[in-house]
């Protein structure tokens, strides 16, 4: 039994300051016993011979200087086993579903070490999500981290669930799992996710960590780490392909800022701590594929942009770490288009390695580029039309303007249970492009035009 200290000197926000301890390790796990016998947990943030700073996960409510503090001598670990699948745990890793405690096969550090870049395998397996705007133009691959940048009131949860339901690697039946980590979302949202998992039977293959809006904010700092530790364990020890859904990253960052303020740190942009980039990287970077191991960790996080502002520090720093982003547009949502993905600011950085002749189809990149270019031009023309009217446009411009409308209606819009395979997506793309004059298809190699353009295809068949 480790020594119990009753030497709390100061309590400030989520932090307690403990004096006169024996040497305590940095990041060590701490148990705190309240006078009424309840216990709370915490973690060492700063340690020296004089004073040890501990952040308390469950909040410092009810704590006083009489509390007993025990340093466990080890950093925070998650007990892991294959039985994690199908379980619902709290944001601190305790069972919430009334089930037994996990009988651990192993206990893993939740901070997780960085993957040696040399041990990584560049992700390249195409994941078909069944959503045209993603598969066709912002392709997701195994091992990628691709967040959804959304805003309040937009259907990001529906999209995330549709992806969780439909995502698959074509022609493969390898075991997969979903790890879902809720950080500060409302009970209602959590219910929505759980219902859908139950309805589709996905729960059996899922591990759920729930830190809800009324749970302590500090706990949010460990929830995603628990989830990613579970994901890595399933991926690298049990050869599973794991899709991790973290929602909502913004709440995580708020908790980070709250901690920074409590520690009286020098704030960076908009009060977020200067190390937020590194901290976020330590989450996002835990996605990938490792040479010689069968499993993979793919991350699909949800991030609601405060004020729909993509330059806000949270989406901005995330965008620098993740391999692209799917941007949800309020404008499209207002038009009643689902899924309202705005392809223009969306991006998948790993798309090029996941598509092409052997993975999807040879013309995929060219079609995607052409759709991008044509839609961008069409959208620009909308601004012009607002000033000069449609009649002032040249024939060519009018075609692009119409293209933009059709693109939103046919390509972007789809049902929330409509699972389009990549061929369908590409052929919708070609049908739309066929409405433009052929000479305008400058992004597409002539041989693909000959082969896939509906006009030429029809000719050949004759």
């Amino acid at each position, binding site marked *: 039994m480790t020594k119990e200290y009753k030497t709390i000197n100061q309590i400030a926000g989520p932090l307690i300051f403990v004096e006169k301890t024996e040497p305590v390790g*940095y990041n060590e796990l701490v148990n705190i016993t309240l006078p009424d016998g309840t216990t709370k947990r915490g973690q060492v943030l700063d340690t020296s011979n004089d004073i040890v700073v501990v952040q308390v996960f469950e909040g410092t409510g009810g704590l006083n200087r009489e509390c007993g503090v025990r340093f466990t001598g080890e950093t925070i670990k998650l007990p892991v086993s294959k039985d994690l699948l199908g379980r619902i745990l709290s944001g601190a890793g305790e069972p919430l579903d009334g089930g037994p405690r996990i009988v651990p096969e192993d206990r893993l550090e939740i901070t997780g070490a960085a993957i040696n870049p040399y*041990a990584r395998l560049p992700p390249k397996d195409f994941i078909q999500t069944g959503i045209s705007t993603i598969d066709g133009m912002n392709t997701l691959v195994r091992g990628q981290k691709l967040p959804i940048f959304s805003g309040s009131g937009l259907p990001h949860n529906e999209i995330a669930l549709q992806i969780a339901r439909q995502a698959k690697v074509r022609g493969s039946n390898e075991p997969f799992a979903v790890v879902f980590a809720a950080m500060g979302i409302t009970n209602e949202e959590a219910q929505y996710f759980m219902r859908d998992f139950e309805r589709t039977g996905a729960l059996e293959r899922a591990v759920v960590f729930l830190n809800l809006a009324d749970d302590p904010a500090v706990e949010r700092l460990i929830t995603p780490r628990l989830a990613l530790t579970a994901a890595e364990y399933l991926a690298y020890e049990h050869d599973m392909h794991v899709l991790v859904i973290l929602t909502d990253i913004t709440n995580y960052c708020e908790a980070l800022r709250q901690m920074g303020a409590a520690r009286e740190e020098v704030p960076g942009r908009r009060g977020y701590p200067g*190390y937020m980039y590194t901290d976020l990287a330590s989450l996002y970077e835990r996605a990938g594929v490792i040479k010689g191991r069968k499993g993979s960790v793919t991350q699909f996080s949800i991030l609601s942009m405060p004020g729909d502002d993509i330059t806000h520090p949270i989406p901005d720093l995330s965008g620098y770490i993740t391999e692209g982003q799917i941007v949800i547009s309020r404008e499209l949502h207002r038009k009643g288009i689902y899924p309202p993905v705005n392809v223009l600011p969306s991006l998948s950085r790993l798309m090029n390695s996941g598509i092409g002749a052997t993975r999807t189809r040879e013309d995929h*990149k060219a079609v995607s580029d052409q759709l991008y270019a044509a839609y*961008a*031009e069409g959208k620009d023309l909308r601004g012009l039309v607002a000033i000069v009217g449609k009649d002032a446009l040249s024939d060519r411009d009018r075609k692009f303007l119409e293209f933009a409308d059709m693109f939103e209606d046919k390509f972007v819009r789809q049902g929330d249970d409509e699972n389009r395979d990549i061929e369908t997506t590409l052929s919708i793309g070609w049908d739309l492009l066929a409405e433009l004059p052929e000479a305008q298809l400058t992004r597409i190699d002539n041989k693909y035009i000959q082969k896939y353009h509906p006009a030429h295809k029809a000719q050949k068949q004759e």
Partner: protein
Amino acid sequence: MKNKGEIYRISGPVVIISGLNTKMYDVVKVGTEGLMGEVIGIEGDKSTVQVYEETSGLKPGEPVENTGMSLSVELGPGLLESIYDGIQRPLPVLKESMGDFIKRGVSANGLSREKEWDFVPTVKKGDKINGGDIIGTVQETQNIEQRILVPPNVSGTIKEIMKGKFKVDAVICTLTDGKELMMMQKWPVRKPRPVSKKLTPSTPLITGQRILDGLFPIAKGGTAAIPGPFGSGKTVTQQQLAKWSDTEIVVYIGCGERGNEMADVLYEFPEIKDPKTGRPLMERTVLIANTSNMPVAAREASVYTGITIAEYYRDMGYDVSLMADSTSRWAEAMREISSRLEEMPGEEGYPAYLAARLSEFYERAGKVKALCGKEGSITVIGAVSPPGGDFSEPITQNTLRIVKVFWALDAKLAQRRHFPSINWLNSYSLYTKALGPWYDEHVSPDWVKLRNDAMELLQKESELQEIVQLVGSDALPEDQQLTLEIARMIREYFLQQNAYHEVDTYCPMEKQFKLMKAIMSWGDKAQNALEGGAAVEDIMKSKTKDDLAKVKYEKEFDTALGVILKSMDEEFAKLRGK
């Protein structure tokens, strides 16, 4: 002098130690696991150390040992083809010794102590040598010969020099005063290696990228910044530069970047053939990879590790290009450490010494006369990642005050799939004048004028676009409609370049010239035809115009272009006849 102390306090990567005699920038071994750290502040008997490895579990009272040396890299044969982390530990060796994840407390030599190299001396007994002189050569890779240099602070007369196969730490040369030289030498990373003279850059770095070579060239020994909001194609542009630039040695620093992208680089580089030699590109490359989740202090060091290696090859008389992706991540590492040190912050929380550190780093670029008398250069291309694409932030602003070339990546262009998405209006190069004579001699005396004309057209286009936004293009006079069309051709046919297309990915200077000339000559002919009374609608229907769009993808470019030029003449002759 005490060289053993103990840990007093731990806060993230910053550890305060007591009871140890240290100098600034000494490397210390922290804790029972001997984690590597560097002294960055001294107060009383306490020293502040930034630790290059994860500090979880470290306790006050654990021992600390001072190595008495500052952070250094090992220089010698075996650097090329290496993949290092920020403090020159080879990643493949780390993988072997600790598995797929980077754990801590493992040290690894930068250069293999096992491998033997065939040393051929170029000096003999009795020769007088000075610091920086070449004493022999080693064939490091098939096309790169490493010249073994005398360490800059050593001179004397040779007593004995060996020949044959040796390991890097074997003595190959003894001086009369008893000094022994090895093929390997160490150099502290934060100190620039000395040169005999700095020269003015006068030859362009040929990159095969049309917008760079053509419009905004950088000189060998110059400095450039690529600021790019995320998603603007910065990484692809940098990788293209690393692949294709005509320097002998490439040092690529992935500083705080994505693991998967680094993996892609690590995978792709060994596969890419050097266009000139047909050998793998890795044979002339040193990669430094410190991803964003690797320890922040090592990220801070990685940039110095890279430039010191670059300087070493420059001192042999090579042209080196160094890519740092991204210097913003580096600056953020400085900021993070600075805030852990509770230093008074400057702008946006960055330390007040940010500007000084940036300029010190870029000053290590340049064309020089090395100590050995040969000319070498380091071209530094630094990426900056301005938060929110806001160029007014401190890193971009401080960088722009130093660098001579600015390649303004533009997310808007990327969204339109205009790649490389470098904005032709906001970019600049201060080398265009200095490089003029080179272009006259090596490309064509017409080139400079051609380029200026093209730039003028693009400038005019942007002015006209403003009017078009208001009234539509049909309302413009015919000659201005034509100007817009020619400018569009320059943008789409010349400036756009497909990095993933086997032919288009690299465009030699000669092809650039011919392509631009063909576009401009179509423009001239069209203007003439218009003046001669042809209708602008008919000119726009030109078939050769559409042919020009695709000629850059042709394997047999010259033949294809020849055909187009011929039919262009015929076409315009017909137009005039109408």
